[in-house]
């Protein structure tokens, strides 16, 4: 003789913490971070990668001569990654700087030996090409700017 048990409400094997629900699983976030580290190494080289890490970890609010330096802006870093994704890899690695406003700045020379500079701001980027132009682009224009400046 068989007996049928009454149906039970099905429960998930685990329930994510409140601070994790809605965000990506940790394995995906780790893969994303690994991809970003690889991108930095490929496009900026070890020196640029190390400098960015140093600015992120050591420059807190109030750094600098008069205590007015701002910590590295996460939105500036986001803009940097968007730009680097589209920037062709080159042997001529850009220099990486931190501005007093907390923005990342890249500087290098293009194939015509003209200085090229890009400062990543919370709103996008400000760029400069020696003997040429300077201007600004929004976040949506960063990939196009990377291709334009790589020429």
């Amino acid at each position, binding site marked *: 003789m068989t007996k049928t048990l009454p149906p039970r409400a099905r429960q998930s094997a685990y329930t994510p913490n409140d601070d994790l629900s809605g965000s990506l699983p940790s394995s995906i976030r780790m893969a994303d971070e690994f991809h970003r580290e690889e991108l930095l190494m490929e496009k900026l080289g070890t*020196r640029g990668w190390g400098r960015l890490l*140093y600015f992120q970890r050591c*420059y807190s609010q109030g*750094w600098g*001569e008069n205590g007015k330096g701002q910590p590295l802006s996460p939105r500036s870093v986001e803009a940097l990654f968007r730009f680097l994704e589209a920037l062709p890899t080159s042997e001529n690695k850009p220099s990486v*700087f931190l501005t007093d406003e907390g923005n990342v700045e890249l500087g290098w020379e293009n194939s015509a030996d003209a200085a090229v*500079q890009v400062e990543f701001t919370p709103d996008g980027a400000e760029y400069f090409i020696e003997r040429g132009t*300077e201007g600004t682009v929004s976040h949506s224009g960063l990939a196009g700017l990377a291709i334009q400046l790589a020429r």
Partner: protein
Amino acid sequence: MHVAGEENVVRAMWTDKYDGERFSASAFKGSDLSVSRLAVISLDDHWPLFRDRVQFPAGRTLLAFAEINVSKLAALGRTHAPQITLWVDAVPLDWNPAHAEVRGNVTRGLANRILDAVEVHWSQLR
């Protein structure tokens, strides 16, 4: 008080503005840029003053002072397109009586011209 055109001023250059290969033009970009007057404190005395006071955070190192004449700085602004009026005001601080600020909003293009015009004095401890 305006700083006289005959005076020379220096801008401290730190690890965040030099990576061993290139200087950052952002060191000269913006408004109310901090500089220091050589007429008040000699270049030799600037080194210990800045090292003792502002090597923060750890690893941030004073690498050089970039020197420029005040009249030359104003002329660079005047001849830039579009023209930018620059002058230097003395703004003494407790720790640095030679402290001054460059008035006028220096654009990135002008900052690059200033960077090309400065005389760089490197730190012996670099």
